[in-house]
């Protein structure tokens, strides 16, 4: 069982939902994201072939949501630990396709803060859960992101 005991951060944020923003999804964004990452599956990258798919058009790559989740845009949880931080992991659940012309409303909440001790010493994790709802109120994706802070061992 994980616990946030002994971790210094703003606990008033825990569990509270924060609007990240509302974003228009254009055809160009979907294609540019696919091209920038080297995607070859036609349902994400080839309009003519995607038109013949069950979707009838291109859809966004499963990880397209990452265009709208950026750690810097979330509230500062005032975590007082470590001198360096990294993106530790991510879980993306695709519930429904994101299509050209969709408007996606993004909402995040701080799901969990906990510590673990590994070979490199103590690490403190903050997990954010982000939900993506389209213009019809349908949830199209859920993303859990884990960020870790630790001491680098470098002299300050």
């Amino acid at each position, binding site marked *: 069982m994980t616990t946030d005991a002994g971790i210094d951060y703003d606990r008033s944020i825990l569990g509270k939902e924060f609007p990240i923003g509302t974003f228009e999804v254009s055809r160009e*964004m979907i294609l*540019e*994201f696919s091209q*920038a*990452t*080297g*995607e*070859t*599956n*036609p*349902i*994400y990258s080839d309009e003519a*072939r995607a038109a013949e798919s069950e979707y009838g058009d291109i859809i966004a*790559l*499963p*990880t397209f949501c*990452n*265009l709208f*989740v*950026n750690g810097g845009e979330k509230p500062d949880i005032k975590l007082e630990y470590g001198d*360096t931080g*990294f*993106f*530790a*992991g*991510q*879980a*993306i*659940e*695709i519930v429904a396709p994101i299509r050209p012309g969709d408007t996606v409303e993004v909402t995040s909440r701080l799901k969990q803060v906990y510590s673990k001790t590994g070979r490199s010493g103590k690490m403190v994790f903050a997990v954010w859960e982000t939900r993506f709802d389209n213009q019809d109120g349908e949830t199209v994706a859920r993303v859990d992101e884990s960020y870790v802070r630790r001491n*680098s061992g*470098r002299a300050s």
Partner: protein
Amino acid sequence: MSELYFEDVDFGDDIGPIERVIDVEQVRRFLSVRGETPVDSRFTSDEYAQAEGLAGAIVPGAMNITILSQLLTGWADTVRLKKLDVVFRGMVPHNKPITLSGIVTDKDIVDGEPRLECDVFMQNEEGTRMVIGNAIFTLPQREG
């Protein structure tokens, strides 16, 4: 790219491997699509990364998960990814070959949907797994 069906895949089947090399221009383009201002960072500058104690510039985690997802989306046109859960265990450097691979761990019909699960890996030339995870995806059945 071939079409792949549920019946074509079984437990223990390998996915990949495929090799990729990510360079700074690809990273800059990815960050640009994300709307990030083109400034030096641990993702684009060796000097900046080294000042943070890293060996050199690294590929952003959000780009790594996308590249790893392409092990599946690039396997066949018919793959439909439902979930991808990854842990970043090490830094992915620029300009070094990385190998993406996976193995099918489960196969079942869930609520009428033909569903598969697999473990996925991104490893470097030394065989160190820098990104690990698992995924759930669907494939069409030959006889619907």
